[in-house]
C-alpha cells in the first residue's frame, strides 16, 4: 500500500521527479536513477566536464570529418606550399600544400582508432588474468602475478621501439607494441578489487545458492571492477596517445600520407624556424586530446571512486 503511495508521488511531475523518487519500482527505474545521480555529481565537476567536452569534440570530429572539412586531408596543391594560417587555410598548409586543418580533423580518426584498439586488447586480457588470479588464489595467483610483474617492470617506450623495429613500422604494430606494455596494471588492479569483493557476504550468498565459479566471476565480481578499470583506462589513454605520437614522430607509427599527428610534427620539424605552424599545430592537437583524457579520468575518479575523494 505504502509502495503505491510512494510510487504515485512522482506521477505527473515529470522526468526529474521520476528519477529522484525514493523507492524505484523496477530494475530499469533503479538503474536510470543511479545513472542520473552519477551524472549530477559528474556534471557539477568543472574539470571532468571540460575533459568530456574535449573528448566529445574529438569523437564528433572523427565521425563528421568529411562534412567538416569538405576534403580528405591528402589533396596536394603544390602551388599553396607552406602558407601561413589565414582565411583560405585556417591553420595554414604543409610542405605539400595540404590543408593542416583538414589533416588535423582527419587525424582524429587515427587517434581514436589507436586508442580504441589498445583499449579493446588491453582491458579483457588484464581483467581475465586479474579476476582469475584474485578469485582462485593459491599457486594460480602466484604464477599469474609473477608473470604480470615481469611486464610491469618493463620500460614502456623502449620496448615498444624494439617491438616495432622487429615487426616493421605501421599503426597496427604500434598498437600491438603499446598494448603489450599496457595490460599489466589492469591485471594488478582487478586482482586487488577481486580479493576485496571475494570475501564479501553477497558473494558467499551467491555461492550458497549454487552459482558456478564462472557465474560468480563474470556476473558478480567483474561488474564491480568496471568502475576502477574505466578510471584507469581513461587516464591511461592520455599516455597511450603520447606514446603513439612519439612512435609516429620517430617514423615508426602511422606511415605517410596518413595524417597522424606525431608524424605531422616530425615532417614539420624541418620547417620549424620559418614555418612554425606546420609542427606546432599538430602538437597542440595531441596536447589537447591528451589533456582531455586526463581531465576526464581525474573527474571520473572523483565521481566513481568515493575512496579517493579530495585525494590525489
Amino acid at each position, binding site marked *: 500500500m505504502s509502495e503505491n503511495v510512494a510510487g504515485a508521488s512522482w506521477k505527473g511531475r515529470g522526468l526529474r521527479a521520476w528519477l529522484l523518487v525514493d523507492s524505484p519500482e523496477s530494475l530499469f527505474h533503479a538503474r536510470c536513477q543511479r545513472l542520473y545521480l552519477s551524472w549530477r555529481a559528474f556534471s557539477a565537476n568543472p574539470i571532468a566536464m571540460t575533459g568530456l567536452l574535449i573528448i566529445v569534440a574529438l569523437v564528433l570530429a572523427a565521425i563528421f570529418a568529411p562534412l567538416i572539412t569538405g576534403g580528405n586531408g591528402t589533396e596536394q596543391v603544390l602551388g599553396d606550399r607552406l602558407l601561413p594560417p589565414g582565411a583560405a587555410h585556417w591553420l595554414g598548409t604543409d610542405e605539400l600544400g595540404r590543408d593542416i586543418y583538414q589533416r588535423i580533423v582527419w587525424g582524429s580518426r587515427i587517434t581514436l582508432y589507436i586508442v580504441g584498439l589498445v583499449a579493446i586488447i588491453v582491458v579483457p586480457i588484464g581483467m581475465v588474468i586479474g579476476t582469475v588470479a584474485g578469485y582462485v588464489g593459491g599457486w594460480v595467483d602466484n604464477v599469474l602475478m609473477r608473470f604480470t610483474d615481469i611486464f610491469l*617492470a618493463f*620500460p614502456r617506450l*623502449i620496448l615498444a*621501439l624494439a617491438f616495432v*623495429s622487429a615487426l616493421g613500422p605501421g599503426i597496427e604494430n604500434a598498437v600491438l607494441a603499446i598494448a603489450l606494455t599496457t595490460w599489466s596494471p589492469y591485471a594488478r588492479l582487478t586482482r586487488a578489487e577481486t580479493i576485496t569483493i571475494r570475501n564479501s557476504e553477497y558473494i558467499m550468498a551467491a555461492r550458497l545458492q549454487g552459482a558456478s565459479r564462472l557465474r560468480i566471476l563474470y556476473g558478480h565480481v567483474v561488474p564491480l571492477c568496471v568502475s576502477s578499470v574505466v578510471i584507469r583506462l581513461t587516464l591511461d589513454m592520455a599516455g597511450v596517445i603520447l606514446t603513439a605520437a612519439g612512435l609516429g614522430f620517430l617514423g615508426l607509427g602511422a606511415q605517410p600520407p596518413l595524417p597522424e599527428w606525431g608524424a605531422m610534427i616530425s615532417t614539420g620539424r624541418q620547417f*620549424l624556424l620559418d614555418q612554425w605552424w606546420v609542427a606546432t599545430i599538430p602538437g597542440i592537437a595531441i*596536447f589537447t586530446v*591528451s589533456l582531455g583524457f586526463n581531465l576526464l579520468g581525474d573527474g571520473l575518479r572523483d565521481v566513481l571512486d568515493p575512496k579517493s575523494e579530495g585525494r*590525489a
Partner: protein
Amino acid sequence: MDDRTGTKAAGACWRLSPPPFAVKFANLVFTLALTFIGLTAVTFIIGRVMPADPVLAIVGDRAPKEVYEAVRLQLGLDKSLLQQYWIYVSSVLHGDFGRSIMTTQPVLDDMIRFFPATFELASVATILGILFGLPMGVLAAVRQGRLTDHIVRVVGLLGYSVPIFWLGMVALLIFYARLDWLPGPGRIEVYYDGIVDPVSGFILLDSALQGEWEVFRNALSHIVLPASMLATYALAYIARMTRSFMLDQLSQEYVITARVKGLSEIAVIWRHAFRNVLIQLITIIGLTYASLLEGSVLTETVFAWPGIGQYITNSLFNADMNAVIGGTVVVGISFVGINMLSDVLYRIVDPRARV
C-alpha cells in the same frame, strides 16, 4: 606462567624459521632473477624469433648460398629455440651483446660511452622535478580545496598531458632561435669538447671537479632546456604524490598533538608531517628517475643529446638489431634496478616497513 611459555614458543619459532631479513632478501633476488628472465625472453623473441629472416638481414639478398649457410650456422640458427635462448642469456650475462653494425664497436662499449649522457640528463631533470614538485605538492595539501590547490592540480595535469618532444621543439624555437637566450641542440659546444677528462662521464661533475668553469657554464646552459622539458613529467608526478601523502599525514593524530602543543604551523608541516612524507617519496622519486631514463629517448632525439636514447633510435633506422636489443636490455636492467634500489632504500629508512 602463561606469559613465559608464550615467549618460549616465540623464541623457538625464531630459531626454526630464517630471520625475516633473509626471507625478504631471497624474495628480492628471486623477483630480480624472474624479471631478468622475462626481459631476456621478450628481447630474444623480438630480436631472434620475430624478424622473418635474421640471416638475410645480415648478408643481404645477393649473398651466395654458402655464405648464407655459414652465417646461419654462425648465428646458431640450426639449434633448437631453447638452446638458442640459453646461448643468448649466457652471452648477455657475460656482457656480450654482439657488435653494432653502425659503430663497428661491441655494443657494450657503446653503452658505456653513451650511458653517462643519459644519466646526467635524467639526474638533472629529476632534481629539477623535486625542487619544484615538492613545494608545490606540500602547498597544495596545506591549502586543500582552495585556489592554490586547484592551480597545482591543473599544472600537474598539464605536465602529464604535454608531448615532451613537441614541447622541446617549441622551447628550442623560442629560447634558441627567436630569443637566443640559450644554446641550441647538443651537449656542449664543439670547441669545449675534449677539454675535460671523462672521469665520471658527467660533464657537469667532471668540469666542476677539474676547475674548468667555462666548460661547466657551457654544459650547464646546454642542459637547461632538455632537462626542464624532461622535468615537466617528473614535476607533475612528484607534486601529485606529495600532495596525496601530505594530506594523509596532516589528518594523523600526531599532527593534532603537535598543534595542541602550540607548535607553529611551519614546524608542524615541515618538521613533523613532511619528514614522514619524505620517506614515502623515496619510492616515487625512484620511479620517476627510472621513467625519465627511458623517457629521454624522444627528448634526446629533439635535442641531439648523445645519449642512449639517441643511440637506440639511430640504430633502429640502420636496422642495427644487436644495438637495439642491447640497448633495450641495458635500459631495462637499469630501470628494474633503480626501482628495486628505491624499494630497498625505503625498507631501510622506514622502520615500519622492516617489521
